[in-house]
């Protein structure tokens, strides 16, 4: 085993090194020394740690569960766990990837997978197609398309769902998302690809894009 793990690797060092994930989570100036202070028993540091990272953790939990109360419970569990294992947290890199990983694991262990029910979804798509004939421009950007996508996101397998949330909601880079999900960049790309493919398949062809936006102009490239 490599005796010098790259910085940015918080937990699961062996696997991560084997994947050769690029180092992406350098410690930010604002959280420099925060973990070290926590480890030395500084309670104020833990509060600061909570306030620094509560937002991204809560956002991930809420995006996965869609339940504010459950998301808050998961937020609390995540930080309680961080406090308990604070002595094992790396001090030379950001703890955020680890927190996000714990959050996603807590989410999927707490909630039963909520598969989209085929019947209402089919009915919803049929309604969309019916509406399309009457008001194509307005309907195409209606809330219902978003609702179809929301159900589609819920129906995604957990790994693809996590990939979509990390990449498209949080805006992490591929390497950062891969680091959080403990996979390599190629796998992360693949998960996103299949997630988009699944979501696109949910929408009928005529409704996949808002009117007027379905064609890319060559000038944009």
């Amino acid at each position, binding site marked *: 085993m490599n005796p010098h793990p790259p910085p940015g690797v918080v937990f699961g060092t062996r696997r991560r090194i084997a994947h050769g994930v690029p180092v992406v989570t350098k410690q930010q100036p604002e959280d420099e020394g925060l973990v070290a202070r926590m480890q030395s028993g500084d*309670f104020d540091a*833990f*509060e600061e740690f*909570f*306030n620094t990272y*509560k*937002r991204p953790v*809560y*956002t991930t939990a*809420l*995006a996965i569960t*869609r339940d*504010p109360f459950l*998301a*808050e419970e998961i*937020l*609390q569990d995540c*930080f*309680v766990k961080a*406090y*308990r294992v604070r002595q094992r947290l790396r001090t030379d890199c950001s703890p955020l990837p680890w927190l996000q990983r714990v959050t996603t694991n807590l989410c999927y262990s707490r909630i039963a997978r909520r598969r989209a029910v085929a019947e209402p979804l089919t009915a919803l798509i049929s309604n969309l197609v019916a509406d399309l004939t009457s008001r194509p421009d307005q309907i195409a950007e209606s809330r219902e*398309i*978003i609702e179809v*996508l*929301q159900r589609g*996101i819920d129906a995604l397998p957990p790994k693809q769902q996590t990939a*979509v*949330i990390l990449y*498209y*909601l949080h805006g992490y880079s*591929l390497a950062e998302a891969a680091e959080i999900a403990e996979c390599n960049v190629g796998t992360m*790309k693949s998960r*996103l*690809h299949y997630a*988009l493919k699944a*979501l*696109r398949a949910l*929408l009928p062809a005529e409704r*996949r*894009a*808002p009117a007027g*936006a*379905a*064609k*890319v*102009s*060559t000038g944009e*490239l």
Partner: protein
Amino acid sequence: MSCRRARREILEHFRFRQELGPSSSAHLEHLVGCADCREEVGIDRALVEQLRRALQERVEGHAPSAAAWDQVRQRTIDRPSRPLGARVLQWGRLFPAAIAGVLMFAIATVSQEGLSQGSQSPQPAGQVQQLDTAAAVDDTPDWEPPWWMKYRTRPPVPTIAGGPMAAQLPDMLGTSADMPPVSGRLQ
């Protein structure tokens, strides 16, 4: 260039914010001349935009409550640390279960040892042939399996040394009377 190759390159550009390099010019040229590909790429781009909106809607207007930190603090910092005695007591509750496990393992090991030793008793040469024929056809085992044997996933291996099966072995194998003595267990 095929539509498939061109779309793959351009879609990656939109999906993963990848830079278009000099090698992408051929793909772009294809896109300029192919309305189907332009539409396909446009649909994909719009899907990504809609997906971002959908995800944003999930979290908009929500934030952790002010009580969240108080709850976390109660479960961590304010939680009274248990004295050593209480922790020992907690582990002490597991002591009877641990003792029971060790005893069961010991009994199982001893029984297994006894069974192995009994089946490996030495046999004088030629004794196999001198066994009574009536006894040879008696299938009744001369030992009672221990109670735990019924919980084994594999049935017990029949022993042949000293048992009734030993007498049948020469017939089964078709060997002559000068066959060396058999002992041990069939594998």
